[in-house]
C-alpha cells in the first residue's frame, strides 16, 4: 500500500483528437457547459449542442439573458463535458471534456447548415415555434480536449491557436 502523488503520467498525450472522442462529440445528446464569473465561482448547466466537424468547434444555443451568457461576457474560458454513462461499471464510462474559449455569436451569423442540423437533432424538444430571434449562440473553440474511457485518459492540445 504505497501512496503515490498525482499521476500526470497516466494521461496519454495525443497529437490528434482521438476518434472515439470525436464519436462521442458527434453522437452525444446533452452537453454540460461550465462557466465561471470573475471571482471564479463556477456554474454548470445541461445544454443542447452541435459539433461542427469542419471547424472543430462546439455550438451551443441559449437565451440571451441566461446566467451562462452573463458569465461568458465577463470570462470567456469555458469547459464543456459530454459523456456516456454506464450505471453498471465505472470502467465503461467514457466522456470528453473540452476546455476552451467561448465566443458569443448572433444567430444570424451562424452557418445556416449548422442551424438546420441543430434543429433536426433536437426536433422533439424545440417544437415548431422555437424563438431563434431571442437566442444567441456560444461557439466554443477547443484548447484542450480530454477524453477518458474507464481508467484511460487521453489529452489533446490545440497547437494552432
Amino acid at each position, binding site marked *: *500500500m*504505497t*501512496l*503515490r*502523488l*498525482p*499521476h500526470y503520467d*497516466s494521461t496519454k498525450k495525443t497529437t490528434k483528437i482521438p476518434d472515439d472522442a470525436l464519436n462521442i462529440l458527434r453522437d452525444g*445528446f*446533452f452537453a*454540460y*457547459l*461550465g*462557466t*465561471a464569473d*470573475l471571482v*471564479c*465561482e*463556477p*456554474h*454548470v*448547466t*445541461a445544454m443542447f449542442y452541435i459539433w461542427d466537424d469542419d471547424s472543430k468547434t462546439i455550438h451551443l444555443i441559449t437565451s440571451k439573458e*441566461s446566467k451562462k451568457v452573463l458569465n461568458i461576457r465577463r*470570462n470567456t*474560458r*469555458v*469547459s*464543456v*463535458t459530454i*459523456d456516456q*454513462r454506464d*450505471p*453498471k*461499471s*465505472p*470502467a465503461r*464510462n467514457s*466522456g470528453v*471534456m473540452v*476546455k476552451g474559449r467561448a465566443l458569443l455569436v448572433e444567430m444570424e451569423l451562424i452557418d445556416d447548415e449548422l442551424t438546420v442540423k441543430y434543429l433536426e437533432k433536437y426536433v*422533439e*424538444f424545440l417544437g415548431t415555434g422555437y424563438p431563434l430571434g431571442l437566442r444567441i449562440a456560444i461557439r466554443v473553440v477547443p484548447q484542450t480536449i480530454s477524453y477518458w474511457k474507464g*481508467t484511460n485518459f487521453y489529452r489533446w492540445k490545440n497547437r494552432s491557436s
Partner: protein
Amino acid sequence: MNRKSTVQSRYQRKWIYEEIVDRIPPFRWIPRTYDVIAQLLLVETVGVFAFIYFQMPYEAAVFGSLAIIYTVVWSSGCLYIVPWLRRLRDPTNEIEFEVLRDYKSRILLDRRLELIGGIICFGAVMSYLWIDTDYLRYFLGNGFGNPLLIILIIVLAWDISYRLGLSLVTTFFAAIRSISLSQAARKRRGLAYTAYSEVRTLKYLDLINLYWGISAVLLLPLTLRSYFLLLGLAGFLAGIIGLSTLSLLAMETVPWFPPDVESILHNEGFAYVSVCSKKQPHVTPVIFVYDGKYLYFAISVASAKYRIIKKNPKIAVLVDMRDSKFPMKNRAVLLRGKGMILGDLSIMGFFKLFLHGLWLIRVRNMFAKKYPMYMKFYEDQAQELPPAWRNKPFLSRVIVRLEPEKITYWREARPTTLRA
C-alpha cells in the same frame, strides 16, 4: 412566487423592553448597541449607591450584580434576535406558511402572551418575598423597610420575572412551532418548501433561546438561600432545556429542499461537478449521494478536482434527469456552494478524521447502497486498477461534502431559482 414577509408595518409592535429602549430618554438617544451597556451602568450605579448607603452585606452586592448581568445578557440577546425574527421570509408551502405566521403573531403581536409568564413569575416572587421576610432581611441588612429600596427591589424583581417569563413563553411556542412545522413539511408537494436558510435561522434562534434560558444560572446564588426560589429556578431551567431540545430535534426533521428537488437528488446516479481555477472552469461527471442536507461525492486524490477544490472550494454541482425522447422528463437541479474535503491525508485531515470518522463511514455505506455495482467493481478489480482509482479511503479517495447555498431548478429548460 414568494410573498413578502407578513409582519407589515401595521404589525410593527414591539416587545415592552424594546419600546422602553426606543422611547425612554437615556436609551433613545444612544444607538441600540450601547443601550445594553447604558442599562448595565445605570442599574449597577443605583445598586452600588444603595449598597454603600444602606451598608448591605457583600453577598447582596455580588449576587445582585449577577442578577443585573442576567437582565443585561437577556436584553442584548433580545435586541439582537427579535429584528431577525421579524425579517424571516415566508415559506412557499401553504401549511408551513400558516404555522410560521401563527408563531410570529403569537410571539411578536400578542401582548398578553408576552406578559403572562412574567406576571405569574412576578406574582409568585413578590408573594414569596412578602411571606418570607427573612430572605430579604438577610440581603438588605440595615436598609430593610426603606421605601426607595423596596421600589428598587420591585423593579429588579419585575425585570427578572419579565425576562424569565418571556423566555419560557417563547421557548414554549418555539417548540410548538417546530413540531407543527415538521408535520407540515411532510405534506409538501412539488416545489413548496421553507427555504432552508430560514430553517437554519429558526434553529439558530432556538439555540439562542436556550442560551438565554441557561443564562438564568446567574440567578442561582440568589436563590440558594431559599428552597422555594431554588425550586422555581430549577423548574424554569428544566423547562427551557427540555422544550429547546424538543424544538431543535423537531427542526432537524424538516427537509431542506422541496420534494421535486429531493426526488432528483435521491434517484439520479450522476452529477456534474464544476470547479474553477484561474478563471478556467472544469466540469467532470461523478457519482454522489445525498443525505437530506449535504451532497457528497467521492473523488480521487490524483484528480484535477482535488487540486482545485483545495485552492478554491467554490463548487457547482448539476444533477439532472435526462431523457432524449421525452422533453417533459428533463429536469435538473444546480447546487452551488462551498465544498469541504473529508478524509484527506494531511495534518488537518487527521484532525478532521476525529470529527468526521463516523460520518465518513455513514457516507461510505450510503455509497455502497446506492451504487452496489460500482462498489463491487472497485472490490473485484482492485489490483488491476491504477493506484489512484482504487477505492481506498484516505489514500486514494476522498469525500467532498457540498453545503448548498444557491439552488436552481429546471423543468423543461425553464429555470426557477429557489431561495436557499
